[in-house]
Every structure is written in structure tokens, then in C-alpha cells.
């Protein structure tokens, strides 16, 4: 067999622009990384609490006024996509089965959205003290 003349394969750098599922995947990955960025931002916020009101408020307002505000909105959008895609993937990653066929992922997605609403309500009341 003439192996030496095979045409080798090399993945193109723009592979994820090939279709919208690849693009959604890359944005989902980015959203995951942004979660860590927010983790560090929250850590910094907690670190300003003992320093005092002006330090804490200055740091908070940094992220709530332009131009960082716009960046914050973009980062938040990515985190929302991370959350939505996570709920969509749970049904696909670990099929939950009570009958002959596993539950369709859309059903699991719906249940997770309902759970998320419940958990968010609990956070509003238990963590932030209600409306």
C-alpha cells in the first residue's frame, strides 16, 4: 500500500465557525470560564467588606457604571448561556429512565428550569432577605 502519498489532515483554526452548534459550544465554554472570572470578582467584593463602606462601594460601582457596566452585561449574558446550556445538557449527559425509553432531554430541561426558578426564589429570600 502506498502510504507515503496520503494527504494528511489538519484541523482549521476556524473550525467552530462551521456550524451554529460548534459556535454555541465555544460560547458555552467561554461562559464557563467567565464563571471563574465572576468567582474572582465576588471574592474581591468580599475582601472589600471588612475594609469599609467606601472601598466596597467603589469596587461595586466599578462594575455598575460604564464602561465596565457594558463588559459586565456581556459577561452576564455568557453566564446565562452557560446556565441554559447546562440545563439542556443534563438530559443528554445522564439519561434518566423510568420506562422503556429515557426521558426526552426537553422534559429534563423543563424540570430543571422549574427547579431553577424555585432555587432562585429561595436565594432571594434566604440570602438577600426578600424583595
Amino acid at each position, binding site marked *: 500500500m*502506498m502510504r507515503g*502519498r*496520503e*494527504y*494528511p*489532515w489538519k*484541523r482549521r483554526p476556524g*473550525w*467552530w465557525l*462551521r*456550524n451554529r*452548534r*460548534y459556535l454555541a*459550544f465555544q460560547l458555552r*465554554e467561554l461562559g464557563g470560564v467567565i464563571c471563574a472570572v465572576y468567582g474572582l470578582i465576588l471574592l474581591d467584593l468580599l475582601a472589600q467588606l471588612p475594609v469599609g463602606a467606601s472601598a466596597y462601594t467603589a469596587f461595586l460601582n466599578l462594575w455598575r457604571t460604564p464602561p465596565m457596566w457594558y463588559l459586565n452585561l456581556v459577561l452576564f449574558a455568557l453566564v446565562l448561556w452557560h446556565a441554559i446550556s447546562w440545563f439542556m*445538557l443534563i438530559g*443528554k*449527559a*445522564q*439519561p434518566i429512565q423510568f420506562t*422503556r425509553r429515557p426521558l426526552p432531554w426537553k422534559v429534563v430541561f423543563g424540570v430543571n428550569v422549574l427547579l431553577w426558578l424555585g432555587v432562585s426564589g429561595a436565594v432571594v429570600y434566604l440570602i438577600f432577605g426578600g424583595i
Partner: protein
Amino acid sequence: MADAEVVFRVKRYRPESGARPAFQEYRIPYRHDMVVLDGLNYIKDHVDPTLTFRWSCRMGICGSCGAYVNGQPRLTCGTYIRDVHKGAVTIEPLSNFPILKDLVVDFDDFLNKLASVKPYIVRKDWGDLSKEYTQYPEEVEAYRQQSLCINCMLCYAACPVFGQSHEFVGPAASALALRYIRDSRDEGADARLAQLNTKTGVWECTFVGECSVVCPKDVDPAAAIQTLKFLATMRHMRRLLMPGAASR
């Protein structure tokens, strides 16, 4: 209807020429019920006998005819021209594999990966081989979905991780491993999970999920890999926390 035509843009590669792969166009008669494979066979029979491609059963069970049709990995025997006829039908060999000639790719690596997950029943003790091993319908159902794989390699063509890292065991081989792990007659789960709990095993997968989207048989290799990650983790924890305990 008889005068209708369609243009096929086919990526050609001649190993003896030394040139890069390039598109060649063919204008062929078109009927409403043709599949892409019919078009390729028409080209080979009446227009250009040098066009080289794999095919066999023409009914979506042998897994031979995988190719990229208009940018999507598909079985050419299972793709109607009317569904992909956007001016021209573009046909390329499957991505992520070296090209041997025209639409024919080299998949020796794929076959080695299939063999590496021990795709056969493994038992410590075979017992009386004159009697059969019975299985209830529920036990068959546990592995039936993964057993439907026809080894067409569309999932490997769709997987960007495999495209970058050729040592990755890949979707079909992983689904095959799960098929045997879930088989009630099998006792080789530990050996297979050991094979998959490696740097080039299931941990390379980032759950892009495109493999399950393109699979013509709904094997859902993406879900199989996530299940294997979970099983490999459980086995790993057992070995860390209870060394020396007997494994399945």
C-alpha cells in the same frame, strides 16, 4: 423531469499526482428520488470512471459510504439530492482522516481504537458452553442503543477534539465499550474502564455533542461518553478508597 440536471462538486485527490485536493464539477441528470450515492455512481459509470469512493449496501447498514455533503458528515446512500440541492451538491471526504484517494480515507487508526476497547464478551469463567447465556428483554434493552453502531465514522468526522488530537479514543469506540460494559453476560468492565481512564481516553471529550447529532443510527455516543466518565470516576474512587477490593 427527465431534463433536470444537478451539479456535483466533488473533491478529488490523486496520490500519484502530488497536487493538493481540488474540486471537480460534474453535471448529471437528476431525478427526484436520487440519493447522493446514485449521483456518484452515475458519474463513475457514465462520466468519469476514475472517481473513487466507498459504498456497499446502499441502505444505511454497512457504514461504508460516509462523506461530507454540503459541509455535513452524512451517508451518501441515505441523503436525498433534493434535500441538499442548493445550486450544487458539494461532496468531500470525511474530515479528520488522511485522504487515500478522492473520497476514500484511511481509517486503520479507527479500527485499532475499536479493537482497543475489547469489543467482545469477556468473562472470568465461561461455565458450560453447551448451554446458552439467557438474557431478559430489559437486559438487552440496556445495551441495545449502543449496539446499533454501523462503524460509519461520521461521529469521528464531526468531533473537533478528534480532529485536533488523533490519539483520542473517540465516540464510536467509547459507545462500543459501553455496549459491552452494559451487557449482562460480560465481566470485563474493569479492564475496559482502565483503557478509557487514560489521557487519550474519555477525558479528552468536552461534550461538544456533534457526534450524536450526525449519527445516522441514534447511538448517542456523547451520552455514552459522559456515562463512561461517571463509571470511570466511580471505579477510580473505589480503587482509591478501598484498594485491594475485588473489582467487577
